[in-house]
């Protein structure tokens, strides 16, 4: 499914929103999920961070959604996948009951042990997502048309998507390996799953996005069809006015009313706005060239995201064809 197809985003089963911390993943995930629900899809948006970030933008002032989740808007459910809750659910199913599991999970030492142990969080989280994708309603059709995942910020090294592959290669037969295999199949199915990287148009994020995309596409085999470049500052003045800063600098200091900013101050403000716009354009191009992918530019919103209306504004841009 190419990026220019109308259903390139909404026609997926699973969209995983990824990127470095601070790039706006939660905003993009929430915006996509909200737009999809308004287009008539049944959508689940899931986050995994410590603390809840979806509710403050999707439904400001409302209570946290937790592991059970809740319908925040018609057709839009949100949940927070807590790895311990997911593991307790999974082990409870395996053991045929929750009494023992809950007791062990309350044990401080056990929790410390699990907190220190690597890899299982990512696996159980992906397992939960896979399970949600498989879930069917009473009539046999999928419970959710689209699942949007606000993935953890990428750091150095292993990302949470690497884990199933590692498990499959390192682990002997068993239910978890089978599950890991199923999860890997879902991730690599380019018609069902899409990775949506979010970047800022700045030097470091631009380069990291390129590294991320290459790794995801080549090592993991997940479909990536575009990059979302966030917080783009607009051109500060119309075309043909690029000479504004220079013209202003040519004026005498006292050319304007005393209460009004001087020509030099105006020139500095114009230069700054022009330079930031230029910087963003440049790095947006760098991202497109280095990844070989079209991009979707989202505008800088000075006031931030105050609620669903701001998300809807961004949603329009998100669903448009990337360039």
């Amino acid at each position, binding site marked *: 499914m190419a990026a220019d197809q109308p259903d390139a985003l909404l026609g997926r089963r699973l969209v995983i929103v990824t990127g470095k*911390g601070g790039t706006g993943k939660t905003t993009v995930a929430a915006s996509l999920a909200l737009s999809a629900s308004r287009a008539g899809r049944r959508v689940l948006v899931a986050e995994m961070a410590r603390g809840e970030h979806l509710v403050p933008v999707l439904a400001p002032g409302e209570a946290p959604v937790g592991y059970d989740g809740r319908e925040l808007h018609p057709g839009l459910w949100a949940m927070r996948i807590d790895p311990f809750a997911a593991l307790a659910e999974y082990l409870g199913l395996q*053991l045929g009951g929750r009494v023992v599991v809950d007791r062990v999970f309350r044990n401080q030492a056990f929790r410390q*042990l699990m907190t220190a142990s*690597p890899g299982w969080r990512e696996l159980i989280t992906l397992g939960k997502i896979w399970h949600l994708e498989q879930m069917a309603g009473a009539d046999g059709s999928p419970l959710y048309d689209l699942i949007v995942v606000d993935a953890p*910020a990428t750091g150095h090294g292993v990302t949470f998507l690497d884990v199933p592959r590692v498990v499959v290669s390192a682990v002997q037969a068993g239910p978890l390996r089978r599950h890991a295999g199923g999860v890997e199949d879902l991730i690599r199915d380019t018609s069902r799953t899409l990775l949506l990287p979010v970047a800022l148009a700045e*030097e470091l994020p631009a380069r990291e996005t390129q590294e991320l995309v290459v790794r995801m596409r080549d090592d993991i085999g997940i479909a990536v069809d575009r990059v979302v470049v966030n917080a783009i500052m607009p051109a500060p003045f119309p075309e043909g006015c690029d000479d504004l800063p220079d013209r202003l600098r040519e*004026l005498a200091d006292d050319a304007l009313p005393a209460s009004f900013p001087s020509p030099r101050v105006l020139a500095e*403000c114009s230069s700054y706005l022009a330079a930031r716009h230029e910087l963003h354009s440049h790095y947006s191009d760098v991202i497109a060239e280095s990844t070989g992918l079209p991009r979707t530019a989202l505008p800088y919103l000075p006031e931030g995201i105050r609620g669903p209306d701001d998300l809807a504004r961004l949603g329009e841009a998100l669903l448009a064809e990337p360039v």
Partner: protein
Amino acid sequence: MTGPNSARPASRLVTDRRIVVCVGTGGVGKTTIAAAIALEAARRGRRSLVLTIDPARRLADALGVESLGNEPREVAGDRREALGIPEDGQLSAMMLDMKRTFDDLVHRFADGPEAVERILENRIYQHVSDALAGSAEYAAMEKVYEMCQSGAYDLIVVDTPPSQHALDFLEAPERLLEFLDSRLVQVLLHPAFAAGRFGFRLFQRTTQRVLQIFERVSGVSFLEDISEFLLAFEGMSEGFRERATRVRTLLMGADSAFVLVAAPSREAARGARAFLDDLERSKVPLVGIVANRMRLWPGSEDGSAPQFSPDMLSAGRAAIEDALIGSANAPVAPAHAATLAQAAADVATGYASLVNLDLENTQLLEQYAIRRGAFYQRIGELHKDVHDLAGLRTVGAQLFGEERGS
């Protein structure tokens, strides 16, 4: 001209302290601020080191830390002159290699070469040094301590790993140690352990049942790895704990200072306020707040922008138009002058609203600093990202109050 400007309280950071820790959420420019502080100390004749976690490549190149194996590199030669570093001053930089730092610790504390080998090859350990929450912070603290003990530096500036919680830098190592603590081993492990027997019987029954299921369905030799890891680490934990305690004492002592770096976007400002709550509770020595990447109104004392009334705007616009048309050097055609004048007026109001927004978002931070007697310094966002030493100088000039261009 490097006029002393000790009127700026931020100056005491570079003159009086041995350790400065820069905390803050991701993307606010901590690395740049940390490097600028270290540079200023060097300019004042001190031997300084900036410990970075994740520098942008060009800045890393500029500092010369690109391909290092966890060792400091000194900024040398004609770059010293360009930066105004006097003979007795020194600026060094290094990038933290977490894995290496942990391995070094294992070599230091494990009971002999066999134990070292066992730990380094243990699968759980291999993950611990990069995946475990708190390991980056632990490694950073460890490196700070080591560099401090070496006596080679008068000031060490630490760029902490990006995190959502202010106290991760201090608390994560604590949490890590709790896991390694031998008391934990005793709680989890059966008394039969003392007899040196391995296997499922090691664990208390309920824990054992759950872990057995986990192991059966995961197919991972989880229990064996964990047991071996705990066994191996038991010998080390005393050493680890003692050292971590000393590091913490050092960081909370009179020679150390914490600086919160914040940015004015809504998200970043909110993150900074959350940080302040945490820092307050923990009695961490916060000496100042740097509000970085601010849009500032040029020439304004308090940084605020003018208020533009409709009359003022139209009078201003008309004046610009006239001035452009009537300009002696380079007169502008009337139609173009009108367009330019409108553009200028839009720039004025547009930029002013950004300036006011940034001030609004950071107001609570400023008030906090005033209340607590901490310094508060705004740094204007530059036209380009800081990617070289000249950029660092510009930031430093704003932070420490010198004239621009000196």
